[in-house]
């Protein structure tokens, strides 16, 4: 595997806990206790260091401890009787995503990642009009203007500014300056105390699509009747439009997870269409922030295998994509899913939705579900307990994940393999 292990210290470690997937961490292993020695943020340190050798790590069937073979057998029995199993959560690595895709096809199930409500806000725009995007190294070297559409980047992606914005040395010079403009009601506290210089345009998040519509009109040289748009005087929008057009390499960034309001994809689309307009005269790109719980990994794998990502049903023997119908919430509420397989291998707080549907959980040890699942199989964390691969937020780079310690916890891919074996013994 890439990276190296010298006397209990791992170098070039990829951190799987946010979409940046920083791959320069140095992590030490002291008899199963991990310590981040270099290049980790608070989130990484917290996530790696809380990974004590797991205690409660036995599978459970109906709450009673059992072996992996027994649990896999019970999971197989439930799946055999299911007419439309729902494979949700899907927080796993590339190998896990490949395995679950195979199983969902075989059992005629539905695939839907836990982050798909946010993911859809971007996916629908790509399907409708597309976008112009860039990647982290480009931002690091070229961006001279960063426009943030109301997301607390410091909290969500702690090393983003250090790695991509505040670096002074680039491929093209040593005194790089990137201006930062924040659009939103107010600057998040973490960003305020970070020491960054940020200009704020105080507009309501839910009116971002109006704001970007106005910016498009101004960039196109149109005369607006309104004097105030989204609560902000027009002249401030004109200033922003001028600044964007004067940028040599501008970037607009947002986190779809934070656009939690109806029809948010229209706001995303307004951003993307503005960026396309700006590219008539200068270079400007979108940088959709995201990537957690392996969402981009699951999406990428399903897309390339079958043509569709989340919200796709395999029951008819052909892939059927319906973003409105095949959502986890919809299927569980209507009873159209008769078994739930919940996969969550990064974060024990991401538990399955509370529902009476028989549930099989492949989850972090120590996970506490609202009700005890019919089958619980503890799995390892990719990048800690076993090696693997994970896609970064810009969806181009797939980082290798290392195994950092001895662990008996199986990977999601291994557990699915055990379930498939049990299914064959019918």
């Amino acid at each position, binding site marked *: 595997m890439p990276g190296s292990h010298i006397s209990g210290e791992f170098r070039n470690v990829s951190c799987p806990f946010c979409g940046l997937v920083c791959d320069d961490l140095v992590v030490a292993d002291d008899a199963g206790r991990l310590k981040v020695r270099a290049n980790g943020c608070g989130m990484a340190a917290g996530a790696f260091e809380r990974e004590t050798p797991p205690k409660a790590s036995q599978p459970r069937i109906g709450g009673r401890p059992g072996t992996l073979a027994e649990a896999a057998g019970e999971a197989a029995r439930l799946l055999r009787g299911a007419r439309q199993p729902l494979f949700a959560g899907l927080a796993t690595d590339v190998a896990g995503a490949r395995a679950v*895709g195979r199983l969902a096809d*075989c059992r005629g199930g539905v695939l839907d990642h836990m982050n798909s409500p946010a993911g859809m806000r971007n996916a629908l725009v790509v399907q*409708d009009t597309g976008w112009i995007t860039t990647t982290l190294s480009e931002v690091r070297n070229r961006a001279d203007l960063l426009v943030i559409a109301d997301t607390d980047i410091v909290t969500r992606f702690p090393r983003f500014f250090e790695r991509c914005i505040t670096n002074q040395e680039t491929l093209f010079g040593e005194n790089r300056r990137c201006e930062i403009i924040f659009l939103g009601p107010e600057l998040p506290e973490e960003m305020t105390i970070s020491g960054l210089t940020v200009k704020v345009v105080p507009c309501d998040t839910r009116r971002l699509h109006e704001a970007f519509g106005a910016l498009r009109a101004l960039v196109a040289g149109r005369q607006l009747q309104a004097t105030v748009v989204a609560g902000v005087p027009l002249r401030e929008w004109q200033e922003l439009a001028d600044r964007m057009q004067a940028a040599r390499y501008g970037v607009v960034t947002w986190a779809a997870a934070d656009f939690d309001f109806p029809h948010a994809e229209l706001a995303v689309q307004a951003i993307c269409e503005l960026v396309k307009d700006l590219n008539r005269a200068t270079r400007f790109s979108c940088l959709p922030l995201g990537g957690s719980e392996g969402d981009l990994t699951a999406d990428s794998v399903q897309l390339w295998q*079958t*043509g569709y990502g989340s919200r796709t049903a395999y029951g008819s023997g*052909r892939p059927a994509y319906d973003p409105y119908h095949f959502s986890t919430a919809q299927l569980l509420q209507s009873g159209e899913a008769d078994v739930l397989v919940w996969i969550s291998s990064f974060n024990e707080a991401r538990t399955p939705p509370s529902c009476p549907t028989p549930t099989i959980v492949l989850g972090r040890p120590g996970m506490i579900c609202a009700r005890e699942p019919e089958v619980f199989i503890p799995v390892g964390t990719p990048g800690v307990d076993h090696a693997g*691969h994970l896609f970064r937020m810009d969806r181009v*780079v797939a980082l290798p994940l290392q195994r950092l310690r001895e662990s008996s916890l199986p990977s999601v891919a291994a557990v699915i393999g055990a379930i498939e074996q049990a299914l064959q013994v019918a």
Partner: protein
Amino acid sequence: MLLKLKGGRVYDPAHGIDGEVRDIYLRDGRIVARPAPGDRIDREYDLSGRIVMAGAIDMHTHIGGGKMNIARAMLPEDHRGDPVARTDVGRCSSGHAAPGTLATGYRYAEMGYTACFEPAILPVNARQAHLEMGDTPIVDKGGYVMLGSDDFLLRMLAAGEDQSLINDYVAWTLQATHCIGIKVVNPGGISAFKFNQRKLDLDERHPFYGVTPRDIVRVLSRAVYELGVPHPLHVHGSNLGMPGNFETTLETIRAAEGLPIHLTHIQFHSYGTEGDRKFSSAATRISEAINHSFNASCDVGQILFGQTVTASGDSMAQHRNAGHAHPRKYVVMDIECDAGCGVVPFRYRDRNFVNALQWAIGLEIFLLVDDPWKVFLTTDHPNGAPFTSYPHLIRLLMDRTFRNERLAQIHPDAQAMTTLGSIEREYSLYEIAIMTRAAPARILGIESLGHLGPGAAGDITVYREAADREKMFAAPEYVFKDGELVVRDGRIVTLIWGRVHAVAPEYDRGIERRLRNHFERFQTIRAENLRIGSEEMIAFGHGAEMVTHPCRRPPS
């Protein structure tokens, strides 16, 4: 297990066999010489009246990597229109212009193809490319890794670094990404676009680095040659799609200074500016250049009418063309100080003057290049048309009457601008076998493919003879892969995973320190993590074998 394929009409140009009735023997996945009379034949296939060729090889098809996945994400309607049902043998999938990898493997195999090569792998995206190819069943695969707009190379060129260091970088890249060739796309142009440059001519200086596309083609073709990489530098030239670009193409050939060079989807680079609409065919000039050249080869990149998607590393050209998208949507990306891409769905119409002439130009090139060892059958899938249209294209090349019927239906002004109607040539089966089997294997340096002699891989395609060549090539009767029957009557019967072909030229390790330093200072991935390990490759390919082909450095 000894198999006998008996009495078929064999076309094996690598051995000069032109339609002779011969038997073929397979043992342990390979073709073997006629066995001793006492050896027991375990299974015999009666192929009397059938046409037998080696499995076909597509040496330029976009089957793996981020931009194809962007195309898939963008086009759910493409998938809805073309679902691929689950069978006992394989999982379901979908897609026509941007098919899922499973559909891709099934359909290539069903058409008698047994090896496919992805021509545009970004170094930082190589894992995804190999994962996607790994999830492409049956066919063997490999890839060409892209250089030429990456800042590391451009910095070296601007600093006047020695060719030997460039060779080391190229070799390192091939080893790190497990590829079999080097590709360059719009040399320097992808980078120039990031500086807001909208075009970059062959002798125009890059706005920051000051080097020219000609410089880039020169040093990369030299690197490929000096490293002994069998496949020539694979060049997507400057000024793609622009009227008058044939001059650029002719000069690009010269930029290699006599070293081997392969010009890809050359149809898109064969345009003149004559006529009222200032758009004309320069296929004659281009074909002449290929005919008279000792170092240049080409693949056509034929367009065929219908809906498809253009997915290319040429972000500059794709952005320029985005206004022609059909449906009206597109994605363009700047990627990792490495490369870029653009995905623009497109519908080629026979009633559109430009599209009609593009169609004719591609066919002119096929028919005017004399030597089928120098011209390769591609549609630059999916850019010109989906690969499932190859049987139709073969019919156009083999059947002049059919071709002229089609010609009579295109835009009348385009008909007036092409000499296609006066070209009498029809490709023979032997020439098709050269162009789709023997020649691709040779130009890739893969000795075990593309032929039917002893030692060859057991990749064999058997067709029922039919006057309608489209029908014939669309659904082979049998396809063998590594000696196993995988397709019968155009349907998959066995699912296996093909192998990956690559080269691994040696290099001075000193370049690694420079790369580590460069990546640490400027990139957001470590050089050590860009490199893909062998065990990763095996996992990506479901345990399939990796084959490293020899590099033969020229005597210095």
